[in-house]
C-alpha cells in the first residue's frame, strides 16, 4: 500500500477522535489555563449550539492528529515570522545572512505545508499573528526573536515526541526537530559566535530543552491572535 494511502487510512481512523470535541471539557480546561485561551474576544461563538470548539477559534484535537496540529500551529508561526523577515529584511543585512534566513524561511514553509497536507481536512485553519515588540528593521530584534522561536521549537518537539503513538509520525518529528536545532545553532552563532549550544539551552547532562505543549503554547500565544484550544491534546 502506498504511503499516502496508509496516511489516509490513519486519518480516517483518527477522525472520530478528532470530532469528539467536548465543550464541557474545554470549559473545565479554560478555568485552569486562562492564559492560553483568550475567551472574551470570541464569546459570540457560544451562541451557536453546533459550535464544536467552545469559545476558542481553533481546537487542535486529540491523539496524534492533535500533536500534528500543535506542530502545524508552531510551524505556521515560524513560517509567518521568517516570511515577514525576508519580505523586508533589516537594513544592511549581509548577503550570506539573507541567504541563510531565506533558507530557513523555505524550511519552515516546507514544514508548515507538510503538516497541512498530512492533516488534510483535520488541519486547523490559518492562524493570525501579532508581532508585538518585534522591530523588523532591527537586526538585534529579529535575531533575538528568531533565537527564541528556534529554541522554543526544539523544546516543543523534544517535549511532544513521547506523546506520539504512530512511529512514522515520531520519525518525521525527529526529521524536523534536528533541522530546527540546526537553525537555532546558526541563529545563535550569528548573534554571538560559539553560543550554538551554550549553557542557557543545554544542561549539565548535555541535554537540550524539552517543554510540554501547554508550556510552549503559553509562550507562543504572545504572538498568536487566534485562540487555541489545546485541552484535548494527550498529556504526561
Amino acid at each position: 500500500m502506498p504511503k499516502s494511502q496508509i496516511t489516509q487510512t490513519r486519518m480516517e481512523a483518527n477522525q472520530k477522535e478528532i470530532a469528539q470535541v467536548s465543550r464541557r471539557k474545554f470549559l473545565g480546561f479554560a478555568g485552569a489555563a486562562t492564559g492560553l485561551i483568550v475567551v472574551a474576544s470570541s464569546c459570540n461563538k457560544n451562541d451557536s449550539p453546533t459550535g464544536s470548539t467552545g469559545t476558542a477559534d481553533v481546537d487542535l484535537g486529540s491523539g496524534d492528529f492533535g500533536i500534528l496540529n500543535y506542530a502545524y500551529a508552531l510551524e505556521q508561526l515560524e513560517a509567518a515570522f521568517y516570511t515577514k523577515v525576508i519580505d523586508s529584511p533589516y537594513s544592511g543585512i549581509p548577503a550570506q545572512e539573507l541567504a541563510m534566513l531565506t533558507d530557513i524561511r523555505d524550511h519552515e514553509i516546507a514544514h508548515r505545508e507538510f503538516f497541512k497536507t498530512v492533516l488534510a481536512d483535520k488541519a486547523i485553519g490559518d492562524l493570525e499573528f501579532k508581532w508585538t515588540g518585534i522591530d523588523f528593521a532591527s537586526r538585534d530584534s529579529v535575531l533575538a526573536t528568531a533565537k527564541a522561536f528556534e529554541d522554543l521549537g526544539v523544546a516543543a518537539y523534544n517535549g511532544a515526541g513521547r506523546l506520539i503513538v504512530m512511529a512514522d509520525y515520531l520519525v518525521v518529528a525527529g526529521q524536523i526537530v534536528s533541522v530546527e536545532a540546526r537553525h537555532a545553532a546558526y541563529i545563535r552563532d550569528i548573534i554571538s559566535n560559539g553560543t550554538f549550544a551554550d549553557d542557557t539551552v543545554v544542561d549539565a547532562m548535555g541535554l537540550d530543552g524539552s517543554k510540554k505543549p501547554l508550556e510552549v503554547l503559553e509562550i507562543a500565544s504572545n504572538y498568536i491572535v487566534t485562540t487555541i484550544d489545546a485541552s484535548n491534546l494527550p498529556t504526561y
Partner: protein
Amino acid sequence: MNINHILNEMNKVDADLYDRIDTRRSALRDFANMSGKVALAAVPIAFGSLFKKAYAGTTGVADAAEILNYALTLEYLEAEFYSMALLSPNLIPAGAASQAIQTISKHETAHVNFLISAIGAVGGTPVDKPTFDFSAGNGTGEGPFKTVFSDFGLFLSVAQTFEDTGVRAYKGRAAELVGAGAYLTAALQIHSVEARHAAHIRQMRKNYGSGVGNVKPWITGNMSGINTPLVQPSYNGEDNTTIAGVPIVNINGFSISADAASESFDEPLSPADVLAIIDGFIV
C-alpha cells in the same frame, strides 16, 4: 571491528540474546561461518539484520538497554574523538575554535555519563568503551584519516561526519522508542544537541577551509562538502524530498526547491548503515 567480540559483549549485556535467537541458532552458526568468508565491509550489515531479527517483535527493558547501549557506543566514539583532539598539540586554533570544541567535548562526555546512568536505571549493563582508531584503519593507525589529529581541516571533516551521522543514528532508532516516555525524551534531547554541534562544525568548516563548497549548517541534497568519497555513506539518502508520502518540492504551490526540500528534513540511518560507517574506527 571484531564481530564476535561485539556479539559476546551484546550477550553479556543481554543474557537473553542467545535465547531470543535460539530458534535461529543455525542462522547464527551460518553467520559465524559466513563472516570469515565475506568482505569485512559487508559484515556489519549482516550483523545488523541478524540483530534486528533477534529482537523483532519484542519490547521492554532489554530493548531499551540495547538501544541506549547503541547510543552509548556512538557517544563513546565522539567523546574520545574530541578528548584526543583537545590533547593534540597545534591542532585546534586557540580562541573561538578551541572554545567550541571544548563545548562539544563537554557535551559528548556528559552524554556518555548520562547514558551509562540511564542503562543502569533500566536494569541493563553498559557496554565497555571500544578501542578506537580515528585513522579509520581498524587498529593499524594507518587508515585514510591518519592525520586527523594534526590536520585541522581533516579533523573538522571527520567531526562533521560524526555529528551528522549521530543525528541520523538517533533518528534511526526513534520508531523503537514509541511509548518509552522519559527515555524517548532524553534521546530526543541528546539528538538535538548533536544537531546543534553539526551546524556549528559546518560553519567552522565554511569559515576555515577552502574546497568545502557551499556547506551550510543544514544538509543540502546528499552533499557532504567533504573532498573524499569515504564519508559519502553518511550522506546517502539525505537528498530525499518525499516525507511520509508527501512530496515537498513546490508543495502546495510554494516555491520550494529540491535543495530546500532536502534541507528541511534530516533523514534517519539504520543501525546496519551506522555500524558500517563506524566500522573502520573501531578496533
